[in-house]
């Protein structure tokens, strides 16, 4: 076994070998080298990215030794990017790392092409203006950007990219569509071939619940027309019928596990899983009208849509079934039927894919069957995340002030929406007074008054002019004085690393808005402004 397979065993169980390969070829650029940057990088280096590049011209100060684990006193006075690079490289011998001794702001003004070499750019502790400039550069280069900040007991994260598509969203709870309400002919035939009357007692107790439900619904529809049990009475009667099929021993019905499972899984028949709003949007997305430049995801989505339309709103069969109390033979037979149908459905979608590719002048074989199969298997959980530009979020004519106003009014998001405004206010404060509020112990009260006025102007410029930000929060922000606390950096670095891994592996779903972490209350909110 490869040594790295052992080293990465615990994460391979999460994102698989293909996810790991994506990581191992990813080059990540990090702007800034303070602890918010290094705590992010530490997690990425441990996970095994190909390489990182740290950009910063700051020197190591005494205060760095109070919050940054990737430094020690031997580095005092040296370039911080260089110093942290050395320590980061110790963490994983398979990762390469380098640094650029230059201020991030200067670099993005002087050499925007610099960022073209990377898969993803992470901006740490940058103020609003610089973030907006960087966002424009990354948009043009089509590179995902993640901006993070730790500010006292507050954290901020915002990703930016025109569009991120996810096939393997890996939801925690998956809905199984066993197609019990609309079985295909072969599945129906198999269910009919099992005669519950004539089989022996042992087999009777081992007929998988999927078959029991199929037989029950067939009988039900013979007696009630082609409808499914709908009312509470119907459903109770349906369950009672299943129960009555259990065999008697000495005149008493024996509680058999397979029948118990059939009764408790009957809801899978009554309400088959619906199409998620996210999938519905994807199927209706205008990008399913293909152009020669369409990405693989949208070609596959267009093919899926065609399948969906042709099959009266049915998705392809997924091919996997949950465990059921059963004999080995009956279970494997049932599993085979689902696999075969899934294969047939993949073939249908594949045919559509080839025709679609041909129609837009592309090589019909350019999307392999394995890709089609992966897409079809995850069809129910496909996701598309789109981000507005940072500029759109900040300008009065484009900011979603309604969403912001709602967040400021709702009890559970009020404080965090206020913190969002306050983080913007501290940047405006900085550009006006050339320091962050609360930098000096002697000016706390004065800064509270100034910040109060600043946050009012930020609110007005966001279309929420009447919103009141609580004085307590304003005072806390001044108290923080732009401090970068190690634990807040560790939390934001953890989240930023996780989001980076989602973009690179294209697994799981990244945060779709602006994330505010409130370390005072231990809460997070995602604002869609």
């Amino acid at each position, binding site marked *: 076994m490869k040594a790295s397979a052992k080293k*990465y065993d615990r994460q391979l169980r999460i994102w698989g070998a293909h996810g790991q390969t994506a990581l191992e070829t990813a080059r990540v650029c990090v702007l800034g080298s303070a602890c918010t940057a290094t705590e992010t990088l530490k997690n990425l280096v*441990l996970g095994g990215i190909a390489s990182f590049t740290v950009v910063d011209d700051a020197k190591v100060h*005494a205060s760095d030794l109070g*919050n940054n684990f990737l430094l020690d006193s031997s580095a005092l006075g040296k370039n911080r990017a260089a110093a942290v690079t050395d320590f980061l490289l110790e*963490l994983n011998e398979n990762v390469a790392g380098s640094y650029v001794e230059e201020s991030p702001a200067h670099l993005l003004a002087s050499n925007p092409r610099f960022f073209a070499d990377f898969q993803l750019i992470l901006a740490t502790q940058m103020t609003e203006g610089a973030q907006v400039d960087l966002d424009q550069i990354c948009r043009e280069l089509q590179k995902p950007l993640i901006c993070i900040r730790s500010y006292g007991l507050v954290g901020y994260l915002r990703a930016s990219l025109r569009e991120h598509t996810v096939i393997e969203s890996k939801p*925690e709870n998956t809905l199984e569509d066993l197609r019990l309400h609309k079985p295909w002919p072969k599945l129906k035939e198999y269910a009919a071939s099992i005669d519950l009357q004539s089989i022996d007692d042992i087999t009777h107790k081992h007929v998988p619940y999927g078959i029991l439900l199929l037989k029950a619904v067939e009988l039900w529809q013979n007696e009630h027309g082609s409808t499914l049990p709908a009312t509470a009475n119907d459903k109770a009667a349906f369950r009672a019928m299943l129960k009555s099929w259990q065999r008697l021993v000495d005149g008493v019905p024996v509680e058999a596990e397979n029948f118990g499972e059939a009764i408790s899984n009957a809801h899978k028949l009554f309400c088959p899983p619906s199409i998620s709003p996210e999938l519905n949007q994807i199927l209706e997305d205008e990008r399913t009208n293909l152009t020669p430049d369409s990405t693989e995801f949208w070609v596959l989505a267009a093919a899926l849509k065609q399948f969906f339309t042709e099959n009266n709103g049915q998705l392809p069969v997924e091919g996997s079934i949950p465990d059921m*109390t059963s004999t080995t033979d009956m279970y494997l037979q049932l599993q085979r039927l689902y696999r075969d149908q899934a294969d047939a459905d993949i073939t249908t979608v594949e045919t559509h894919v080839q025709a679609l590719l041909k129609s837009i002048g592309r090589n019909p074989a350019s999307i392999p069957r394995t890709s089609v199969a992966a897409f079809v298997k995850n069809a129910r959980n496909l996701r598309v995340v789109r981000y507005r530009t940072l500029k759109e979020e900040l300008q009065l004519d484009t900011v979603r002030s309604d969403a912001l106003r709602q967040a400021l009014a709702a009890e559970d998001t009020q404080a965090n929406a206020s913190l969002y405004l306050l983080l913007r206010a501290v940047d405006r404060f900085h550009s006006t007074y050339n320091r962050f509020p609360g930098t000096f112990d002697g000016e706390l009260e004065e800064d509270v008054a100034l910040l109060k006025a600043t946050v009012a102007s930020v609110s007005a410029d966001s279309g929420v002019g009447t919103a009141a930000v609580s004085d307590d929060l304003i005072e806390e922000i001044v108290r923080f004085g732009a401090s970068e606390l190690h634990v*807040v950096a560790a*939390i934001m670095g*953890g989240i930023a690393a996780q989001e980076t891994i989602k973009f690179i592996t294209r697994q799981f779903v990244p945060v779709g808005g602006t994330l505010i972490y409130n370390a005072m209350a231990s809460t997070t909110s995602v604002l869609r402004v």
Partner: protein
Amino acid sequence: MNGADRWADLNKLLTRPGKITGPGFEPDPALLDFLQNDARVLCVGAGGLGCELLKDLALQGFGNIDVIDMDTIDVSNLNRQFLFRMKDVGKSKAEVAAERIMQRVEGVTVTPHFCRIEEKPMEFYEQFHILVLGLDSLEARRFMNQVACSFLEYDDEGNPDMSTIKPMVDGGTEGLKGHARVILPGVTPCFECTLWLFPPQTKFPLCTLAETPRSPAHCIEYAHLIQWQQERAGDEFDTDNEEHMRWVYEKALKRAEHFGIQGVTWQLTGGVVKNIIPAIASTNAIIAAACALETLKLITMCSTGINNYMMYVGADGVYTHTVAYERDPACTVCSSSVPFEVASTDALQQVIDALVADKTLGANLSAPSISHGAENLYMRGVLEEATHENLSKPIGELVEAGGVIQVNDKKLVSTMRVKLKYSDLASMQQ
């Protein structure tokens, strides 16, 4: 080096007044001195969470940290346990972690304890202001919970004596999910109060494994639990022994082929046999930092604390939920007393037998000793003879109705307080 410059960021929180702080917060430069010199914190576990916790605590100004862990370093730890290197494999986690933290964070003292948590006496745990847990097993959490709750004392009205509360902060992760919680025994729910939060492990019925296997996991468990005993009886199965694991894998593969079951892999074999919980650096970083921050808040009151459980889910965006769980008033570990019904005419021996036989209370009892206030009712060991005659006395003569007896047992970490209700005197009590 340890001057104000170094801790400038942390000091803003500790020396400036604030409106959103814990009860009784007094900004003071002495808070940092206290953290550096006097505060004692025990980090339980030096694994994925433990490594992060040690780093976080050290960089929050804690100057004296103890860490306890019985484990040695394995290759599969290196994707997240960042204090360890390939050359450290096989060494004590606690010892290597302590050394690395002290190398990097000047001025901090980390004292390692390379042993099982059960090996330490109560006096060891008593010396800490706070216990921070980075564990991955329910058993270890329950043990530490009993330790923390054992220091708790109640006054006569059944209110917790605040000076006896040993705060505990606990974190846990699985993949992209995790939790951080604060346990103040007697005030917020302890582990036993909310045991339902930990779902039971899935176990396959043996007859399924033997007679009707359907999944690759069934084949693996058959090889592991049944075939091993049949074919290698006397040879103790060890999950860390690669030859043993490979044997199980190969047997499972054969069995799967025989039945036509697909999907037995080396990776799955490890997962099923060792019950491996997937783990990544980022989730550990998030949860450990949340725990370390709560630790700082509890010690300094510099900000408001979690009440009392935060869950984190990172698979679909970032979702957190903070919830105030409630204590179980009849909790056998942290409540002032657990109600238990007997007849006043029952002999003390009968009461003891009933306690041991009780489904809940008896789980941690084998040979209990009983006292009531300062009076020994029945004691094992040297006092057995002196208290033996009480065994035949009716309990009603020894303890008043509604009285609380203290139950001690080898299997209990702390005393269990049981409030006796007399079924035959029920009407009189009302």
